[in-house]
């Protein structure tokens, strides 16, 4: 494979970024719109302790995937030189 073929620009994940961005935005909108109800439930303690933990995992999955794609679309990516540290 030639040098130019190896370094062809990859297709940017615009569709995925939009999808995860919308989900992420919806999660934040719901969080702020329903904050009183959420606070009342989440601050009960006891078994409700699982609620903030589950919420954090859900947000980190959708928003984390979105932010990853966001930087890729902007062209900010890891160095192509150092993929592995030994």
């Amino acid at each position, binding site marked *: 494979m*030639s*040098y*130019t073929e190896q*370094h062809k620009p990859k297709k940017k994940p615009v569709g995925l970024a939009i999808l995860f961005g919308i989900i992420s935005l919806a999660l*934040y909108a719901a*969080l*702020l719109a329903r*904050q009183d109800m*959420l*606070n009342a439930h*989440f*601050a*009960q*303690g*006891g078994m*409700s*302790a*699982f*609620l*903030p*933990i589950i*919420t*954090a*995992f859900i*947000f*980190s999955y959708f*928003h*984390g995937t979105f*932010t*990853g794609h*966001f*930087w890729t679309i902007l062209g*900010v*990516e*890891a*160095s*192509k*030189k*150092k*993929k*592995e*540290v*030994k």
Partner: protein
Amino acid sequence: MHDLAQAAANFINLDAATIIYLFLVGFVGGLVSGFIGSGGAFVLTPGMMSLGVPGLVAVASNMCHKFPKALVGALKRAKYGQVDVKLGIALGISAEAGVLYGAHIQESIKKAFGDAGSNLYVSISFVVVLGVVGIFVLRDAWKTYKSGNMHAEEKITKIARWVQSVNIPGTMVYFKSLDARISILFTIPLGFATGILAATIAVGGFVGVPSMIYVLGAPSLMASATELVIAFVMGLGGSFKYALHGMVDIRLAMIILGGSLFGIQLGAMGTTYVKPFMIKVVMGLIMVIVLFSRALMVPVYLSQLGLITQLTEQTTKILKSTSFAIMIFALALGAFIVLKAMWQGRRAEQLEHKETLAHVEI
């Protein structure tokens, strides 16, 4: 626990300015964490408290943003081959025990000496630990820089060589970051100390990362990436503990997470552009600057405890604001160095790519 439940019911009202502030501090904190494996919490917790959030809710909410952030950062850096999951989990488990013990010490001090006593203990821990470890890390980075061998593979210390040479049958485990088998027993005190520090000053990584580098012999990049696994394990357990008492303000945690997930991706990518000694530079600088910030607060707490002459309200106010400003400066400087190093690395790579292309076309 009744007073805790009352504090939890006292969640603050959020306006647009507060949301933007938390998002931005989260972003900068995430950027630094993605790069050195920890950091940000020392600004976030007092930052939230300055908005009127009760101390325990601030600590709990910070912790609840920390573990999902660390998870995303660890997954990102695992793609670059920088994470040693086994070492992270081993240290994370003993760190969890350290967190519980550290919290117990905190509670005992608070009971005996009140808020000022507890704050004094936290500030002195900051000054002592950051003074010793921060200066050591910075000195090491400076020596590497002066030697001109910044590209050379990092040498392991004498103590790490000794740790790797000790053979205790039945406890030996191979860790890929060390490329050696060491006794799992060595990870216990290191993880425990990381946990105690996390429970005391909220940034366990200031002990966790240097101990992996200097005591176990891990490369800087792997140590800082593996710290994210420790932060995940510690943060998950800690968040659950606080959530059991209803202390987590999920809105604060998720807003900070919103900013920090943008930052942590950048910080993680930044590690692929820099020379490994830059991890030590950023970590050492932040530690030493934060040390000054906390040292400024020592007279305030000594005065509150009546151990020195009473400070005027004006002096206390000036010391508090200067201390907070220095902490923000430490975080901002760390973020600036990461972004600058990343920018330069990217430019150099793009230039090299263009030159190679031109050469290929000729």
